[in-house]
């Protein structure tokens, strides 16, 4: 039940700030009504779109992280589809992926620490420790070998 979703929506550039924040409160209300909550909101502001969507060349991006169930997201999805101020939106479930990421990360630090201890070093890197310099030249991804 404790699922976490991420919602990004692109609001038409004609919308005023008030309209944008109204959309936010709308989403919040739906969330509350259906037993969810908004964990955090992030307004990316106005950005240029990578391609034109209808008449629009820019849009205001808003990112919301929402706790709640699938029913809630379905409802939000439906509402956003209907709204004509919103030109695009995307809902992604993030809790599972986040868990995987955290797991790999902690596993990596654990093995790193274990190996360091096995070599008789303190588990964490010391500030003055050299060995691996900051990514020697990183032109592994020079793409000039690409044929066209």
């Amino acid at each position, binding site marked *: 039940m404790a699922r976490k979703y991420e919602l990004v929506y692109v609001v038409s550039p004609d919308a005023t700030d008030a309209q944008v924040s109204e959309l936010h409160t709308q989403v919040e209300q739906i969330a509350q009504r259906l037993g969810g909550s908004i964990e955090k909101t992030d307004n990316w502001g106005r950005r240029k779109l*990578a391609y034109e969507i209808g008449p629009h060349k820019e849009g205001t991006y808003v990112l919301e992280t929402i706790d709640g169930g699938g029913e809630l997201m379905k409802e939000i999805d439906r509402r956003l589809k209907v709204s004509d101020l919103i030109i*695009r939106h*995307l809902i992604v479930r993030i809790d599972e992926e986040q868990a995987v990421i955290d797991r790999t990360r902690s596993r990596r630090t654990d093995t790193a620490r274990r190996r360091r201890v096995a070599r008789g070093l303190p588990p964490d890197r010391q500030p003055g420790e050299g060995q691996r310099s900051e990514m020697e030249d990183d032109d592994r*991804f020079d*793409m000039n070998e*690409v044929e066209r």
Partner: protein
Amino acid sequence: MNGRKGSGARGKAGAQGGQGGKDGQRRPMFRRRKVCKFCADKIDDINYKDTKLLMPFVPERAKILPRRISGTCAMHQRKLRTAIMRARQLALIPYTAE
């Protein structure tokens, strides 16, 4: 023309084309061994919001750069693909460049 053909053309250049014998007399081609960027830099999270990270993998034409060229490992290429497709939906990355 630039001679990436034959079986060795996968780009895993660990071995030099040196003793290539019959077809390789003209180029002692050294291909840099490709490394998966995400493995090397320990990037666990390939996120669709991170356009800076994704952009190098969608060159000019805005097509996804194939693994054989970027050297990305299978797992990360898969994640990269989903991330790019999500970013495209939100118009963060183009579908095509005209």
